[in-house]
Structures are given as structure tokens and as C-alpha cells.
């Protein structure tokens, strides 16, 4: 397992996990979110080929009220 952060919270995933696999494990079922790894945007089409590493910071964001 490797240790990383999802929205600032510690998480563990299997070594070699792709972002797509992690998103599925974390049960993000809605389609209205976007993801950044270490503050770099990852397009949805790249989830499968993005391999997560120990210590990665993953942000999953969704629409919210704003001015």
C-alpha cells in the first residue's frame, strides 16, 4: 500500500493504483467533479494512465456556490 492524501485527508491505496482505480475505490459516483494531483489538473481522459505515488496530494472538486 502507499499513503497519500485525498482532499487533505490521509488515505491508502494499493501500490500501482491508477487515478481511475482510486476514484472508483473512493466511490465518487457523480460525473460533476474534476481532479488535480499535486496541484496539476488531470483531465478525465487521463485517469486510467495516471499512476499514483506515495505522498501524492489528490484534490477532487465539484461545483459550489460562488461570487
Amino acid at each position, binding site marked *: 500500500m502507499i499513503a497519500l492524501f485525498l*482532499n487533505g485527508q490521509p488515505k491508502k491505496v494499493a501500490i500501482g493504483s491508477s487515478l481511475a482505480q482510486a476514484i472508483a475505490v473512493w466511490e465518487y459516483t*457523480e460525473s460533476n467533479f474534476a*481532479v488535480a494531483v499535486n*496541484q496539476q*489538473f488531470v483531465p478525465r481522459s487521463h485517469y486510467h494512465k495516471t499512476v499514483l505515488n506515495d505522498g501524492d496530494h489528490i484534490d477532487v*472538486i465539484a*461545483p*459550489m456556490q*460562488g*461570487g
Partner: protein
Amino acid sequence: MTWEIGGKTLTSRLLIGSALYPSPEIMCKAIKASGSEVVTVSLRRQNPSENSGGQFWDIIKNTGLHILPNTAGCHSAKEAIAIAQMGREIFATNWVKLEVIGDDYNLQPDPFGTLEAAKELIDQGFEVFPYCTDDLVLCQKLVNVGCTILMPWGAPIGTGQGLLNPFALKTLRARLPHIKLLVDAGMGLPSHACQAMELGFDGVLLNSAIALANKPVAMAGAFAHAVDAGYGAYQSGTMPQREAASPSSPIIGQPFWH
């Protein structure tokens, strides 16, 4: 009368925010009463157990308005660029309200980070609506990197103080006649929005002044009227100010002349 901004044709010159309303129902009614065709939204972390983002997004989608995603809360160009890219994927729009904050106390935009992010985002095909200060040189540099829209503040966000530096805003209008100028932030009264439009601005972007009013729906309507009034005044050309009084009634024929 229609106008164009960011490649879209609009009727209303009031852009509205989606935050701080007492309820989603009041937000929807206020947005409708404002007549706005553009609504701003933010992006925030979402945990899997929550779907607050989905519920909110459903409500906003149902308004049918153009979405203007913001980069609120970003403190660097890097953060703002990433949030803009994420917004483009979620909302399928190349519009972004660029906010790079330089000071947490008054939420003053960071001119250097804003300029850096604007250049990169324009290179990536975004239509950038930069929230900026009213500094002429900064605004000129934003135009030089490709911005066709500028959104200088009237006053710090959420203060409701109105236009603190009308001279600077007037200067921007005079020096950047072909740029779409909108006052963003700091207005509290419809008269503030009216004043911005009287100065020749193309529009205003509001949130707190409507959402935090005792009656947000009624206030939204009041702002809509104020924006229309100010725009009409600017288009009509105002009379010159004079130092001395000048009677409007004819002097000739005045009875009891002494």
C-alpha cells in the same frame, strides 16, 4: 439592447453570484428577478459521502444561465490555472473569472499573480474575466497579454462600500475604450451599480449586496433597474457641471422685476 462579452450575446448587464443566499429557493428567485444571464460559481473539495456539489449544480443548470466559474481562494497563478482547467472540464466553458488573492485581510487581488495567470490561461484558450484592482498600469498590462475584459473592484469584496475610487474607474474607461469593463465587488446599494454604469462601465458583477439584503429578491430587482438607469444615463450624455447656479426658467418676462 443586446451587447457582447466573451463571445456571447447578452441583454442584461448585471452578472450575479450564487453564494450567501438564505436558501436555494431564494437564490433562484433573486437570480430571476435580477434578469441576469450570467451566474458565477466556485469549485470546492467534495468528499464521496457528500453530494452537495451535485445538488447545487442541478439547481444552477436549471436556471439555463451562462456559467462563469471563478478561481476564488487561489493565492498563486499555479493554483488559479489548475482551478480554471478543472472548471473548464466540469462546466464545458472556456470562461473563467480569474481571482488570485494577494492579501487575506481585504481580499485584494495580487496584480502579479493575476497577470501571470491571465497570460497562461489566454494562451490555453480561456476567455479570462480578471478580478483586478483599478490600477491603470496593471489593467494595461492585462490588456497587453490578451484580456478583452477587465473587472476592477469597486471596494473590497463583501464590504458594500461602493466605488471608493471613481477617478480611477473613470480613467480606465477613458484609457481603455475598447475593453469590456465591469465593476466587480464592493457594491452595496443599487446607486453604486448605477454610478458604475454612469461612468461608462459595460456591466457589474454582484453577489453580497443582493444575497445579504433583507429581501434578496426585491433587491435583485432594484439592482436591475439601477443598472439599466445608469447605462441609459451614460448613453444619453450627462450635462456639464457648473460652479455657479443657472436658472432653468426664462428670465425675460419675469414679473415684479426689481
